[in-house]
């Protein structure tokens, strides 16, 4: 799998990236690069990382996801991690993974709402 297989959709100024289900380490790394590249050229108001197809979230993959969220924050873009499956959520918690203050949502709809809310807050400041 290469970075061309990573789907990125732009919808109402928000970038929606589908995280591949069973990526090898190389794909995980190129996923991060691709997200940052696309953000630089699109200047989106938000980023949604859809992990609804991810079956195995180990500490390596989780760390890359968290790094990506931090990098997006440095570039001024709020990010929401969306669609974590229940078994993955339980496993991540038992594993001891911490997602800190990362915004999370059950599905795409709520993820979009969160970003709209977040951007409105920033504008009103």
């Amino acid at each position, binding site marked *: 799998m290469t970075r061309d297989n990573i789907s990125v959709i732009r919808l109402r100024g928000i970038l929606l990236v589908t995280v591949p289900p069973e990526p090898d380490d190389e794909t995980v790394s190129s996923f991060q690069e691709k997200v940052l590249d696309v953000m630089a050229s699109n200047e989106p108001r938000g980023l949604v990382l859809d992990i609804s197809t991810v079956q*195995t979230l180990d500490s390596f993959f989780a760390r890359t996801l968290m790094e990506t969220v931090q990098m997006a924050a440095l570039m001024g873009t709020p990010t929401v991690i969306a669609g974590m499956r229940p078994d993955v959520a339980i496993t991540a918690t038992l594993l001891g993974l911490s997602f800190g203050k990362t915004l999370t949502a059950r599905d795409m709809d709520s993820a979009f709402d969160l970003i709209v809310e977040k951007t409105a807050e920033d504008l009103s400041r």
Partner: protein
Amino acid sequence: MTLRLNEDFPINEEGDIVLARRLVREFALQRGFGTMDVTRIVTAASELIRNIYVYAGTGVMRVAFNEDGARTGMELTFSDQGPGIPDIAKAMEPGYSTGKSMGMGLSGSKRLMDDLTIRSVVGKGTTVIIIKWRSK
């Protein structure tokens, strides 16, 4: 590359991590483990296979099933001839890592599974055995 029960599956390159993980998933599903358990087993396996790759370079994984009266246990063994772990108690502490990882691999795997045993000799290598039981 296929994985046979009770036989060593080699971990030699980075691509083997995903491959080994996929095979563990198939075996667990075949033996009737539920989604929750399968996700736990595969995630623990992923951590331990990565430990082999990162710390020892190469090693092997072995899958076995134990029948114990009313229950079936999936037992995964990860062995390498790497540098070994000088202080196992310390290595089991959450957040402790000599590598660049988050240090969740061993402690996290123990929480995900029903049992985790480590044998390690410095300079000789490390063997980690994990077990998940399923009621019949």
